[in-house]
């Protein structure tokens, strides 16, 4: 297929190319909803089966770290939205600045996540690996707490993996924006990677109350 500037050969117009890319990302995100959905399903059932143990286990994770992370991630979503806006109105310098701030906020999030994971390691709360919920917990409680932490690591781990992929995409965007590639006519990559980033944010918006906020009275 021949390329004409930023237009790939299978499309007739740039507008068609942009719409196609955007719809493609949306459809991909709907897949992602169901992908995380399997975990949410597992979570829902186990929480409804073992509400007390889940509540007790939830209380052992550090609330303020999660709360800070929520703010950080929403802020990064804001800067990402601003990047899309900057690229649409052609403010190339602002675009680069917003993209870099998004990346920095994303890295802060991952850093805090790393601290939390380290805490879990110290507390023997990593499932399948010297797991010990609390001294004196009986076999059943220990097993059910391990379920909670399996889900905690499964959900936040999968989320963090998405963050890392997103950070990689952001680095590429920053590189291209430094070359001045994005113009008001052609900014599709900024837009669709923006969609992806917001989605990752949304997943966290649900993970936070589900994992950190069980019966914190």
């Amino acid at each position, binding site marked *: 297929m021949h390329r004409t500037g930023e237009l790939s050969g299978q499309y007739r117009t740039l507008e068609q190319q942009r719409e196609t890319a955007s719809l493609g990302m949306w459809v991909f995100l709907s897949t992602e909803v169901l992908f*995380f*959905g399997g975990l949410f399903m597992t979570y829902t059932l186990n929480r409804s089966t073992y509400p007390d143990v889940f509540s007790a286990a939830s209380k052992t994770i550090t609330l303020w770290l999660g709360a800070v992370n929520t703010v950080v991630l929403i802020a990064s979503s804001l800067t990402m939205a601003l990047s899309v806006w900057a690229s649409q109105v052609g403010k190339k310098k602002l675009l680069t600045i917003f993209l870099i701030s998004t990346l920095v906020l994303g890295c802060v999030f991952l850093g805090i996540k790393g601290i939390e994971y380290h805490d879990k390691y110290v507390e023997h709360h990593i499932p399948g690996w010297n797991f010990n919920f609390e001294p004196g917990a009986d076999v059943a409680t220990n097993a059910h707490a391990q379920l909670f932490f399996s889900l905690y690591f499964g959900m936040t781990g999968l989320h963090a993996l998405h963050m890392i992929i997103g950070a990689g995409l952001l680095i590429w965007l920053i590189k291209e924006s430094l070359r001045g590639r994005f113009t008001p006519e052609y900014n599709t990559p900024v837009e669709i990677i923006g969609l992806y980033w917001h989605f990752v944010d949304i997943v966290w918006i649900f993970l936070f109350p589900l994992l950190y906020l069980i019966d914190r009275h």
Partner: protein
Amino acid sequence: MPREHYLNATYGIRSWLLTTDHKRIALLYLASVTFFFFIGGTFATMIRIHLLTPKGLLVTPETYNKLFTMHGVAMIFFFLIPSIPAVLGNFLLPIMIGAKDLAFPKINLLSWYIYLVGGSFVLYSFSTGGLDTGWTFYTPLSSVYSNSAVTPAVLGVFINGFSSILTGLNFIVTVHTMRAPGMTWFRLPLFVWAQYATSIIFILGTPVIAITLLLAGMERMFHLGFFNPQLGGDPILFQHLFWFYSHPAVYIMILPAMGVISEIIPTFARRPIFGYSFIAGSSIAIAVIGFFVWAHHMFVTGESTYAALTFSLLSYLVAIPSAVKVFNWTSTLYKGSISYDTPMLYALGFIGLFLIGGLTGLFLACLGLDIHLHDTYFVVAHFHYIMVGGAVMGYVGGLHFWWPKITGKLYPEFLARVAAITLFLGFNLTFFPQFILGYLGMPRRYSSYPPEFQVLNVMSTAGASILALGYLLPMVYLIWSMRYGAVAGPNPWPATGLEWQTASPPITENFEVTPEVTWEPYDYENRPDLGLAIHGAPSPAHGDD
């Protein structure tokens, strides 16, 4: 110097392995799914030979368990699910809607590579100890107790899921944004409607099995407890999540085949399809309602009576759109001009076999009967009627129908008719006795069985040997025809779709100029360009060009 087309536009291994042309990717898929079909077919043959005697003729119980598991995994995940979408769909969908390619050609190639990686994992599992969990991977057998190579197989199926997802994504977006001018939604060929419906399932179902198998794999590797009752997990949850995808997956297999049949029947009856919008709508209805019936696989797990009643009722509802399709196909034959060409034989065979497969589904959806029939050979016969009698007949029929377009050559018609009839008879002899076996209570997945079941098993094995020949024959003559077949010309049947408006084989960009669609689908009455004797027109010779 022959005319340039997609096959001879460029040469060399690289031009194939790095191609982004949907037609070449379709052929890459054709080769790989055929490979898995013969692997799965070999296992099936061994299974049937083994079951000739009650004690089992050929292998140990352990090996037998691996045979049926690997037969299922190879056939379902690596042949049936990708067969029609990734081969025929890939080749035809862009041409049928008048596009130069799919929306995302590189992602299309990527999905083939993902398929290869997933396939390699599974082959690795097959060759290092095999897999004995059943294709359903039920926990805790798969996640705790099995001693076979479960982890690579689960990872392989998990990876392969992304291949399906990307194919579905590509198709949905392509249908939305890449249609040629004048190609409105209700002018789309029914094959495209079917592919679109299938893609909905790819997109919304496949991720669920991907994450489920990932969890089961993690559970096995790290001794977690999601589905292990000893650690507080629930094995029934695995079944819910598994069937949330795997029941709709049955429609992934059958819907595209229904799409193929909806193309073949009007072409060889030479008249508009009866009830176009009902066939199109029923495809979407099947895809959507098909998602709400999954727990009918779990009527005897101890699930709640109320849930069972709900799922049974919904299962009956999903039968209606399938019935609507069969009625419409049959009515399309009425006052047609019917020919005996091979694709038509496959299409009529499909109707017959799908009819039996679909109707026996009504027995299994019935709560009171399912308790007795569940996990017996009745179920085995039922889903083989749908998947082999339906999906594979559709796939092979479609291959014959579009073979002239794909290769530019005609296959030997007589041999092809012999093969079609052999397949039909062999299939019925193999699987019909299994319905009776099932009602008598013979459980599935048994490497040995009580002697009173032997007569019917011998009949089934005899049929299987005929069936195996029926599959080898097309393999031979289709390959032969690529070199020695007669030149087909752009529109040998003739048919009305856009894919028949371009050369055979098509050029890399499909059309010299983007076509503009001004006619309704299957509208022989208003297509003087096809050179047929249209009612009211003076004679075919006077049709204008």
